[in-house]
Structure formats: C-alpha cells, structure tokens
C-alpha cells in the first residue's frame, strides 16, 4: 500500500539521457519517445495522437527505431529510458510511413476536405502531401459508411472519410465524459456509431463538438461552418474568450470577410484545452441571424415599437433612468447583461450601473 511516509517526489524531476539521431538528449523520466522527439523538433507524423488523450498506439505512423529492439516501436506509447539509442527517421521508417499513408488513403472516398470541417481536418491530407503518398495504390473496398441522414443540426457524420483512429471515441470518453460514441464491429468493418446505431440526438451526445475538432480527416464535421464553405476568401481565426459563461474557454472565432462562420476551441486555451460546450461550439449563428435587431426601436404613444435614431433612443432611455433614480432612488435600477453580447458590452454595463447609480445591482445571464 502507498503510505504517507513514502518518499516525496523532489522538486526537480529526475532526468536521464538517451541518444536521438546521434545526439545526446536529456529527458525527464516518464516522458515518451514521442514527447522527446517533439521537444527536439523531430518531425514524427501521427494520426491517432491527441496530446490531451491517453496515448493509443493505433496509427503506427509514429514508429521509431530503438537499437536492440527488433521491430520499430510506437513512440507515443514507449517511455524513454536511459541509454536508449533512437533513430526517429531512417529511410526504412520513412518508407513505412509512406506505405501506411497510402493504405489509409485507399480506404477513403477522398482525402482533400474543406477546412471548415474542423480544427484537425487537414491532418491526413497534410501528411499525404508531405510524404508524397500515392492515392492510386492499394485499391479495394472502402471502410466506414456515412450517416448523412442524421438530423442533428450541428455534426456531420461523414464516415466514408473515417480512418478508425478512435480519437472521437476517446475524446468523448476521456475529455467530455459522455461515453456517447461506440466502436461497432471489428477489423476493416469497424464503424464509428452510437448505441443501437441511432441518431446523435437520441444518444448520450451533448454536442460539445470535441469529436469534430479532433477528427483528423473531417469525417466528423461542423455542419454550420460548412454552410459557409462557398463564401469567398480564407478562413480567419481570431482568438477570444467564449462569452457564454464564467469558465472562460478560449475560442478561435472563425470569420470569412465580415461574416462569423463558426467557432473552434483553442487547443491551448488555459481553461478548456480544446473543450467547449454546445453553446460555445455551435451557438454563434445569432450574429448573422435575419431576425436580429439591427437598429434602435422606441415605443410610440400607441404602444407599438417603431424605428428611431440613436439620439432619440438614447435620450428616451436616459430620461427613463433619470426619472427612476429621482423617484425611487439609486437602487431602483438593476441591469442584466446578455451572454450573447461582447465582453466590452458586459464591461460597459457594469460600469454604467456602478458609476451611474452607485449600486451593485448588476448581473450577467451567464454568471457561473
């Protein structure tokens, strides 16, 4: 049994050295060979790897040679050990990687996919290009069957593009804790699905979108962002913080021209590390919604709202506030800001109440 008086780990983690491509490299005990290669800026390709998840060892692209071990080892699941002699990219390994990419490419309908599909959607096509993998080898049956009739509004289930890396399954279980995604069947006939092959809406899915963002082929895709794929121009990403609640998830807001087309979780967001909820992931279409209020309205004597100028509207509001304060005191005003408003508006709202009325009667709908 582990006891309280067992030796404490020292502040400085224990280190050792190994030989990587002929150079002596220091590492921290517990690190994997993949992590060492990353730090030493070796290019080691992966498709099943997501640094937030337990290393899985499925794609085998990250194999490296370790002296004294007959077969190459998966660097993602192999712990670095003192004195190891590792070669990250000898010609033999390079050939294996290319062959593996050609095999993976052969099981899919296509490998070039729209960047709107998701954060990691270009990983496979990027590697195919980098390794100059041939698309015409290893022809045969295709794996995975798309379920395009799933009526949910958020996630496209285009499994024709699935390569069974299980990142969606694992992110759903390990990160989100939903355990909504199933692995049906086995071997080449493996199919990513949910319980009893139903629609996502009848499953345990909460539409957090993490499966979409970790998918390396675009098999799971952001339906809403894809609606904007015909818009001209490149996708621009702007780092901001999701306004919907107090967690403070970092997001990259996706725009094309002056249009917001979607949002993506920031993989390096300190509060969320790539996680979002359904609102932060998919809840931004109100910005361009046709029913959105686009100019001030004031209520006429007949009780109906009519379009007004900003000056008129602001005068009307100011008058109302002044009257309320005069007749009922400074605590008669309570402001509540909307989670759909920008942070600047939320800041201005609390400033307005605190400075204008000397009160703390202010809140935000997404306080948590």
């Amino acid at each position, binding site marked *: *049994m582990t006891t309280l008086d067992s030796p404490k780990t020292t502040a400085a983690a224990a280190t050792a050295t190994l030989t990587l491509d002929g150079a002596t490299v220091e590492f921290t005990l517990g690190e994997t060979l993949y992590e060492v290669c990353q730090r030493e800026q070796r290019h080691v390709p992966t498709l099943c790897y997501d640094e937030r998840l337990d290393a899985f060892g499925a794609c085998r692209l990250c194999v490296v040679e370790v002296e004294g071990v007959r077969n190459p080892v998966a660097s993602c699941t192999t712990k670095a050990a003192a004195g190891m002699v590792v070669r990250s990219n000898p010609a033999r390994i390079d050939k294996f990687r290319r062959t593996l990419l050609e095999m*993976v490419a052969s099981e899919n309908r296509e490998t070039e996919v729209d960047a709107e599909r998701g954060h990691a959607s270009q990983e496979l096509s990027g590697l195919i290009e980098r390794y100059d993998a041939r698309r015409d080898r290893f022809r045969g049956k295709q794996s995975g069957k798309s379920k395009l009739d799933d009526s949910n509004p958020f996630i496209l289930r285009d499994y024709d593009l699935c390569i069974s890396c299980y990142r969606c399954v694992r992110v759903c279980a390990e990160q989100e804790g939903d355990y909504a995604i199933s692995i049906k069947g086995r071997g080449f006939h493996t199919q990513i699905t949910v319980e009893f092959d139903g629609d996502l809406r009848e499953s345990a899915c909460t539409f957090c979108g993490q499966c979409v963002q970790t998918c390396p082929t675009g098999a799971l895709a952001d339906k809403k962002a894809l609606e904007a794929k015909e818009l001209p121009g490149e996708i621009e990403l702007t780092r901001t913080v999701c306004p919907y609640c107090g967690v403070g998830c970092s997001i990259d807001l996706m725009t094309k021209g002056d249009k917001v087309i979607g949002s993506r979780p920031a993989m390096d967001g300190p509060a969320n590390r790539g996680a979002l909820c359904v609102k932060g992931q998919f809840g931004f279409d109100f910005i361009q919604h046709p029913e959105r209020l686009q100019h001030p309205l004031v209520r006429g004597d007949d009780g109906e709202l009519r379009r007004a100028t900003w000056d008129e509207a602001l005068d009307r509001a100011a008058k109302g506030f002044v009257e309320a304060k005069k007749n009922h005191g400074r605590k008669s005003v309570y402001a509540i800001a909307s989670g759909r408003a920008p942070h600047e508006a939320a800041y201005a709202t609390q400033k307005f109440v605190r400075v204008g009325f000397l009160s703390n009667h202010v809140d935000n709908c997404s306080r948590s």
Partner: protein
Amino acid sequence: METGGTRPGEGTSITTHDEAVAAADKDIIEAHANEPAPLLPLLHAFHDRDGFLSEAALRAVASGLRLPLADLYGTVTFYDHFARFPPGKAAARVCDGPICMLRGSSAILDALRKDGATPMPCAGRCDDPCPVLIGDQVLVGSSADALEERPSKLPVPNPGGYEECLFAAVRDPARKTLEGYLATGGMQGLARAVEVGAASVIDVIKDSSLAGRGGAGFPTGVKMQAVRDAVCEHLPTTRYGARKYVVCNADEGEPGCFKDRVLMDHDPFALIEGMAIAALATGATTGFIYLRYEYPQTQNVLEEAIAACVARHYLGSDVLGSGKSFHLYVRRGAGAYICGEETSLLNSLEGKHPFPRNKPPFPTTHGFDSMPTLVNNVETLCALPRILVQGAAWYRDLGLGKHAGTKIISLSGDVQEPGNYEVPFGLPLRTLIEDWAGGVPQGRKVQAVTMAGLSGGFLAGEALDVTLDEASIRAHGSFLGAGGIMVFDDSRDMVEVARQAMAFFAHESCGKCFPCRIGTQRLQERLEGSAGPTNHDDFLAELGDISEVMMSTSACGLGVAAPLVVTSLIKYFPDAVAAHVARTRNR
C-alpha cells in the same frame, strides 16, 4: 432508465408484462453482478435466455453494471457469437476453417443455410471435421444429415514410443473424476507445492526450462517469479481489493489447433491442479479459465471438476490445508480470435472493448484489474503437476538432444491419422507426418504444411526437413507457436488456401492498429483477385509493401504474423502466384 417503477396513481397490485420482464432481468443481473469479471457471464445469461441480446437486455446490463450503454453496445458487436437479433443462437454455425473446407463444410453450410446457418471460423475439431455449433451443442460429421455429438478424439498411444508428460495419463478414462484422478497420481504435484513452498516451486519450473506453450515461448518460471515479486501498490484498492490473479488462456482460436480441448476434456483436473500450483507459487488468490465459445461441453466438464475440487478443498479458501485461498472461475468467450492475445483477453474479462493493450506494462505487473497476473496457456499449466512430481531434470530430458521437454502438436489435413501428438522437442517434422501420422494419402506428396496453426505461414520444399523446435523453424522464417500443423498434399490449390487464411485474419483483425486493419483486408482482396494490380510486378510490390509494414509496425502478434501466409506463398509457390495474377488479368 427506470423500467420497474410505478407512477403514483397507478395500480400497484397489477404486474404488467414489462414489469415482469424487468424483474426477471433484475434477477439475472443480481445473480452475476457481484462475482468477479461479471460482464461475460451476464451477457451469456441473457443470450442463453433469449437467444440473442435485445436492446432491453443491453439497457438492463448497462444500468446494472453501471457501464456506458454506447460502450457496451460496441463491445457486444465485437464478438462473433453474440447475436443481436433472432434466430441468433438457435441458428447453426458451420466451421469454415481450412481443414473443414477440404472436408465438405461448404456443402453442410449450404444444406443448413435455409434455417439461418452461417459460417464460423475454425472451431477446433480439425481432427474430427466438420463441427456445427447449434445452441450449446457441438455436432460433427461429414455431411448435414450425418451430424452427431462425439467426444473429443483421444490421442493415439505415442507412435514413437517416447515418454510423455501431458498425455501420459490422458487416455485413462478414470481421469475424468476426482477420485480417478487421485487414484492415478493426481494432486501429488499440488501437495508437493504446498510442502516445498513457492520459492522452491518456481526454482523447479525455471530449472525445467518449461516455456509458454501458447506460442510465445516465454520462460514460465521467470514469469511466475515476476508475478510473485510484483507489488500491488500501483492501485491500492480496486473493487476486489489488491490481489494477484492466475488466468488460463483457453481461448484456443488459432485455426488448426485443438490440443487444449483434448487436455481439458479428458484431463480437466490436471489443469485445475496446475492452476492451483501456479497460484501458490505466485501468491494469486483468484483464477479464471478464459474458454473459447466454441467449446461448450468443455465448460461443463471444467465447472463440474471445479465444484468437485472445491468440495474436497483442492480449491477454495484453504487449499490443501495450506491456509492459502484460491478461487477459480470459468469465463466463456464469445467468438474473437484476438482474445487469445493475452491483453485482449484481460480486457475481455474486465468487460472492456477487447483491443490489445500497449505493452509495457505487462500483465505480470498490470494484468486483470491492473493487478499482477500470470497468464498461461492450458498446455503450460497442465505440465506443472508432473514436473513438480518428477523433477526438472526428468522434464528437460524428455526433449531430444539439447532440446528440453515436449510439445503437443495438433496435426491435421492430408494425413492418414490426424490428431494430437505429444512430441519431444527436436523431432523431425517428416517423422511426425510420415511415421507417426501415416503420411499423406496414397500416391500423393506433401506440398506444404502450415506452422503455428496459420500464423506461421507455410513451409514447403526443403524447409519440410525442419525439426520441431523454435530454433529450427525460425531459421526458415516461421515459428512453431501453439503447435498447429496442417498438411496439404499436392492436389491442393495453395493460393486458395492462402486466401482462406487471409480471410480469417481479416475477419479476426480487431481494428485497432492501421497496418493490420487495412493490411489484412487488402491482402485478402488481392488473394481473391477482387482488387489490386493485374500486372505481376505491381502485384508483388503491393503485397511486399503491405506485408513488410504489417510485420514491422503492427501493434500485436496478429498483424505481425498474418502476412507470413503471403510471404511464404510467394517464396515457395511463385508460379502459382503468377498464374493467379494472370487469371485476375483475364477476368
């Protein structure tokens, strides 16, 4: 998922049909939920009751064991023998293993197909084909109207006159009861183990050179020592507390292997005694026999034997007065070759998706429930009692020349006398085939044999001069493995045999690692001529690249070994391969 409650205002005295079903489901769950490794027995209980696993049953199991429903659904679909819909278990499964395909199983399948029969991979009756599994009954016969239940074929008396370890007493019908087992020298090894203690037992086993007979050949004594020395600190408490386990791998799924079945059917107490010895040596208190689905009668034999041993204190909370406890359970698989891979097997036992685990850590420190676990094959465990009684030197000397010990070979195919043979390591393969088993049919020649069931690929030509030991066989790029050898005479189409073999590996690939998942499929397609280059050089280049990447980068032994069928086919039968490519060109 409340299914049993009643809403306020509803009559409470009337039990609806749904409530009755829910109550029955609950009874099944309660009967199993608190035993170790409950998922498989629970699923089998529903599968036996209904003939298939209904949505309601899976919902009940998920909620009863607190498993995510999606996870459970996926795991159930992994197993070939779990049916989700009628006719399910009632429909016949007909063996389409390599030997049965030579013996008319296609015709049996065709005859039974109208009743929903489907093929199943090799069911381990290659010495007595063709097996048909109907419900929990295994029938054998050469045509659909000649199917009957027959006991596992006993090995013939050793044709070479060599002394045996495992089969020494197996032909004695008395061995089937505990009384008979005791009267023929049984349980003396266990008594000896209790007397000399764990350290001495491990020393004897190390000294005997016994190594894993499931195929991997890891030294058994060294593995026992590792489990004995392992500390349970990494997970201080689990559901069952910190403890060690012994797991018997009886998931004899390798096509052409049927040796474990004969040991368990005819000498079940030897396995139990071996496991009890292993438990005493390692400090394990709980054991499982993970038995393949296709051996239902064996399950009855084992469970009756275990009950007899518990009653006489050879198992239970005080084994032979040693003060040590060892509780043994049989767990039935559900049709997945990969569960013969030890870490897949452990995941299956734990109720997880049966993908192999990444190693290290190894089961000796992180096995069942992440606890130190000794996983050994039936044959390995069955050897322990006699080694303890007769001594390490006796066992070593059973081998020929510098080789130590014996190996059971399951020999089948085109030989006069197929069956299990306990051979001394180092025996020439030709002696086994020609002298012991009567050779191929009159007028025929041996064209090729498979090694390690199917995993070792083919040997042919001069390679047939190997002796039966790993060093000799590995020199030819193959391996002895679990000891299945299938013989094909010169009338057989080896490309077709290779196609069937690759169809098996593709069917059984778990789908975790890319090279095996895609590679087995692509190799199968090329061997059946349904896809791939029709130019000979391109054809060979694709086969070569796929095989090389599978052998070098696959995550477990299945993917590493599967391409041997292809590489050995190309090596020994280049003309047949060229003719095959030419045929696909003309198609």
